C-alpha cells in the first residue's frame, strides 16, 4: 500500500496530507519508572504493583536510572539534543486506571529534543524525519471490563511502566511515509535494546495526528488524532481512511472537528470517540516530588561511547564496503540480532560476505521461520555455520550436500564435520579416483562420446550426471567438468 493508492480518487492532488506520529515505546527495564515493581508482561492482575503504583498515601516516586539511560541512548541515536536539565511534570486527570490522579510525564523540558531519523521508503527514496521530542513518562493501569459481572476491574501491573514518547514533527505526507517512519523507529529501538518492540503486548504503540491542507498551503489544517493502533498495517489503513474522510468532508463543504478517533480494524474505518464535554485541561506543572533531572556530561559521554553502529550506517557499510545489494543489506539491518549473527559469521569468513549474506537470509532464515525462532535462539550458531561453509568453499562438499548437512545440523545431528563423515559426503577431489570413474563412464557410453566429439556439447551434462551417479554425488563438480572435457577432447 502506498500513497498512490489514495490518489485513485479524483482531486486528491489538490490536497496534501500532513501526519505526525506519537510513538510510545515501552523501555525494557526490569522495574518501573518510579517504583521497584517488576514490569514483566502477563502476570496475574495487581501482582506487580508496588505501594507507589497503587498511589498509597505518603509514597513517593524515585526515578529509575536505567530508564533514563535508555531515553538518552535513543536521543543520541537520533542525533538529538540531550537536555542537561529536564523536568518531570504532572499531567492531572481523573481516571480509574490512573491511581494518583496524575501521570508523571515530561512537558516543557523533555530529556530529548530536536532529533532526526533517516527513513528508507519502499520506492527507494529516503526521507529525513524531524523528531521534535522524546520524553519519559509512566504508563497507566488497565481497566478490565469482562472479569466481573457489571463491574469494572482495575489492573495496575502496567501502571508506572516506563514509556518513551517519541513525537515526530508533522512532516509525513502519506500513509506510506508514516508507516516507513514507524518501522524505522521500531527497528531503531530494538536495535538499541531499549524496547522489545512487541506490538501485540503493547510495548510499541502509535497515535497518529492527521490533517489535510490544500496543496501549496503552508498552514496546517485541523487535525484529528487516531489513538492506539497496534500494527503497522492498521496504522497505514487508519491514516489512509482518515485522509480520505477529511478530504471528502472538506470537499463536501464540511469542516474537520479536532477530536480523538479510534480505528476499527474490522471495518477499516476511524470513528470519533465518545465526545468529551469539555476541552482537556491537564494542569501540567513540575512534579514537586522529583527534582529536575540533571545529566552531567560524563553520563552522556559514557552512553555515547556505548552506542552501537546504527542501522543506517551499518546498511551503508554493507553496500559500500562489503558490496552487498540494497535488498540484502536492508534485510540484514532490520534487527540487531540478525546483524550480530551475520557479523559473527563474517568474522569467520571475512572474504565471503555475499556467501554469508545468502546463507543468513536463505537457509537460516527459512529454518528459523519454520521453527518460529528468533535468530538469537538459532539452533545453529554462527561459528558452526561458518565451519560448514568453509568445508563447502574448500571443495570438501558440494552446495547440495551443504544444504543437507545444514538441515542435519539444525535437527541436532551434530557438528558439520561429524555429519559429513557419517554420511560420506566428502567430495571426491582425488584426480585418480575421479579419472577412473570418468574412464568407466566413457567406456560404458562410447556412442554418446562419439556424438560429443562430433560437436554435440550438450552431452557433457549427461556424462556429469553419469559420473555423479557412480560417485553418489560426491564428485567435485569443477574438477569433474575439467576432467571430462579433457578426456573427451583427447579421446
Amino acid at each position, binding site marked *: 500500500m502506498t500513497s498512490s493508492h489514495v490518489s485513485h480518487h479524483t482531486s486528491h492532488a489538490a490536497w496534501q496530507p500532513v501526519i505526525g506520529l506519537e510513538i510510545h515505546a515501552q523501555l525494557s527495564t526490569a522495574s518501573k519508572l518510579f517504583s521497584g515493581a517488576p514490569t514483566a508482561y502477563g502476570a496475574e492482575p495487581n501482582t506487580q504493583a508496588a505501594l507507589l503504583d497503587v498511589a498509597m498515601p505518603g509514597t*513517593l516516586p*524515585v526515578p529509575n536510572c536505567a530508564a533514563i539511560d535508555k531515553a538518552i541512548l535513543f536521543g543520541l541515536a537520533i542525533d538529538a539534543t540531550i537536555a542537561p536539565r529536564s523536568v518531570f511534570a504532572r499531567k*492531572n486527570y481523573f481516571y480509574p486506571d490512573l*491511581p494518583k*490522579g496524575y501521570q508523571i510525564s515530561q512537558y516543557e523540558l523533555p530529556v530529548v529534543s530536536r532529533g532526526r531519523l533517516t527513513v528508507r521508503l519502499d520506492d527507494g527514496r529516503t526521507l529525513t524525519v524531524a523528531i521534535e521530542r522524546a520524553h519519559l513518562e509512566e504508563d497507566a493501569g488497565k481497566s478490565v471490563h469482562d472479569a466481573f459481572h457489571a463491574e469494572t476491574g*482495575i489492573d495496575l501491573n502496567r501502571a508506572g511502566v516506563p514509556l518513551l514518547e517519541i513525537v515526530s514533527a508533522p512532516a509525513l505526507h502519506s500513509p506510506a511515509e508514516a508507516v516507513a517512519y514507524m518501522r524505522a523507529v521500531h527497528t531503531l529501538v530494538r536495535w538499541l535494546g531499549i524496547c522489545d518492540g512487541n506490538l501485540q503486548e503493547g510495548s510499541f504503540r502509535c497515535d497518529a495526528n492527521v490533517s489535510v491542507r490544500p496543496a501549496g498551503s503552508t498552514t496546517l489544517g485541523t487535525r484529528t488524532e487516531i489513538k492506539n493502533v497496534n500494527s503497522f498495517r492498521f496504522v497505514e489503513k487508519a491514516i489512509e481512511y482518515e485522509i480520505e474522510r477529511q478530504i471528502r468532508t472538506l470537499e463536501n463543504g464540511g469542516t474537520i472537528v479536532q477530536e480523538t478517533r479510534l480505528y476499527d480494524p474490522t471495518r477499516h474505518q476511524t470513528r470519533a470517540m465518545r465526545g468529551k464535554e469539555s476541552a482537556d485541561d491537564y*494542569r501540567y506543572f513540575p512534579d514537586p516530588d522529583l527534582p529536575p533531572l540533571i545529566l552531567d556530561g560524563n553520563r552522556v559521554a559514557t552512553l555515547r561511547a556505548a552506542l552501537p553502529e546504527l542501522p543506517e550506517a551499518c546498511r551503508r557499510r554493507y553496500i559500500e564496503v562489503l558490496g552487498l545489494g540494497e535488498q540484502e543489506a536492508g534485510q540484514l539491518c532490520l534487527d540487531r540480532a540478525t546483524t550480530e549473527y551475520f557479523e559473527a559469521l563474517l568474522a569467520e569468513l571475512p572474504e565471503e560476505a555475499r556467501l554469508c549474506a545468502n546463507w543468513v537470509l536463505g537457509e537460516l532464515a527459512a529454518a528459523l521461520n519454520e521453527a518460529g525462532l528468533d535468530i538469537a535462539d538459532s539452533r545453529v550458531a554462527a561459528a558452526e555455520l561458518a565451519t560448514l561453509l568453509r568445508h563447502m568453499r574448500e571443495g570438501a562438499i558440494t552446495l547440495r550436500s551443504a544444504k543437507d548437512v545444514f538441515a542435519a545440523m539444525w535437527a541436532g545431528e551434530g557438528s558439520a564435520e561429524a555429519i559429513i563423515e557419517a554420511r560420506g559426503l566428502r567430495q571426491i577431489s582425488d584426480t585418480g579416483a575421479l579419472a577412473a570413474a570418468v574412464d568407466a563412464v566413457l567406456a560404458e557410453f562410447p556412442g554418446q562420446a562419439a556424438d560429443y566429439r562430433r560437436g554435440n556439447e550438450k552431452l557433457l551434462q549427461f556424462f556429469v550426471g553419469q559420473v555423479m551417479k557412480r560417485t553418489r554425488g560426491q564428485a567435485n563438480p569443477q574438477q569433474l567438468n575439467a576432467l571430462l572435457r579433457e578426456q573427451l577432447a583427447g579421446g
Partner: protein
Amino acid sequence: MPSPSLAELAQQLASGQIRAADLADRALARARERAALNAFITLTPERARAAAATADAARAAGRAGTLTGIPFAHKDIFCTKGIRTTCASRMLADFVPPYDAAVAERLDAAGAVLIGKANLDEFAMGSSNENSAFGAVRNPWDPERVPGGSSGGSAAAVAAGIVPFATGSDTGGSIRQPAAFCGLTGLKPTYGRVSRHGMIAYASSLDCGGVLARRAEDCAQVLAAIAGHDNRDATSAPRPVDDYRAALDRPLAGLRIGVAREYFGAGVEDGVGAAVREALGELEKRGARLIDIGLPNARHAIPAYYVIAPAEASSNLARYDGVRYGHRCAHPASLEDLYSRSRAEGFGAEVKRRILVGTYGLSAGYYDAYYLRAQRIRRLIANDFAEAFRAVDLIAGPTAPTVAFRVGEKSADPLAMYAADVNTVAVNLAGLPAISLPAGFSAGLPVGLQLIAPAFAEGMLLAVAHRFQQHTDWHLREPGDSA
C-alpha cells in the same frame, strides 16, 4: 518540679528508677485524663505496652539508645503500619497503612514508644486545628483557645504533659505556630533533612517533618533520630547528619542575629512584639549582636504560599477518588458520581477550598498569572534570605503575630486565618530550617520567638535556642489542668 527532659528520662530509665512500661502507662492515663483537649485521634495502648516491654527488654540487654522507652505521639499524618492513619479526614477515617513512614521506622528503631496518633487540621491544612473531621483541639493554656495548627494535637499533647515529645509536619508553619501557641519548642528542619516517605502529602515542595518538645535539647535528640538521607524520597538530602547534641554547647558570643523589621509590622500584637524584643535583649546580653535587617519580599509570602501550596495539594489529593482505599460513597450511579460524591463527602470545607483554589491556579489561562508568578516570588523570597545571611547568622522575629486566638474567632474568615501564617510561610518557601521557642507571655498566653537559619544549620538553631533556655524558664512553664 518541671517535666523532665528526654535526657533526664533516659537517665531515670537507665538507673532503673522507672521502666518504659510505667512511662507508657502514665502517658496513656494522662491522655485519658486530658481527653477533653481532643489531642488524639487514636490511642494505641496495646502496642504502646508491647513496645514499652520491648524497650525495657532492650535496656536490660544493654541495647538502649537515647530514646529507648520514651513515650511519644505521631501527628496522624505519618503512616504507621497496622495503625489507622486518618490525616484528620473523613476520607481516611478507616485507612490502615500497610507500611511505616520513614520517620516512624526511625523512631521505632530508636526504641521510642508510640502511644497514639495526634489530631491535626485535615491534611495539615489549617492554622488552628479546627479543621479536623475528628473535632477541634483545645489549647491546654486556655481551653477556649486554639492550640494552633496544623500540628495542634501534637502541641497540645506535649503542653499538657501527656508525652515529652511529638512529631509534627510543617508546610507553612504547622510545627512552629502551634509550638508558639502552646509554649513549646518546635523545630522545622531544612527541606530534605527528614524523609517525607510515608508522610501523607499536602504540598510536596514545602512539607517537612519535624518535632515539638519542651526543650531545644529534646528537639536535638529527636532530630538526630529522624534526620538523614532516604533513597525512597528523591527530595531527601544526601548529606551527613550533624551531631546536634554535641553542637548544643556552642557559645553565643559573636553571633549575629538579624532582626527582620517586616516581622514586627502591623498585625503583630503589642504583647507579642514586646515579649519577643525582650527575648532578643536576653540573647544580646549573652553575647549575640542584634542587627536590623530587611526582607523586602516578605509581604508577598502569604499570597505566593496560598497559590503554590493549594496547587500542589489539588494534585496530591486527586488520589482520594474512592477507587482503591478511603471513603467511597454509597451506591455510585456512575464513575462521575463515584468521584464527586466520594470526594464531596470525604473532604472537609477547607480542603475543598484549597483543592478548588489550587485547581484554578494551575488551569490553562491562569497558570502563568498564578502558579508561575508565585514561583517567581518564591525565588525572590529565597534570595532575600540568602542576601540577609551574608550579614547575619540567624534571623529572628515573632513566630506568630498573635497569641493563641479563640476557638471560632477566625474560622469564618479564611483570609484572617491565613494571615496567622505571615511570619512562618516564607521559611517553607525558601526551604530553610527554623525553630520556635517560648519567649514569654502576653495576657497569660505563651509567645513564640522564631529563629531562622541557613539551610542545614539546624545545629546552630538548636544551640542558640538551648543557650537561651539555659538562661530563661519560659519553656518550663506549664499550664494548669483547667482544660
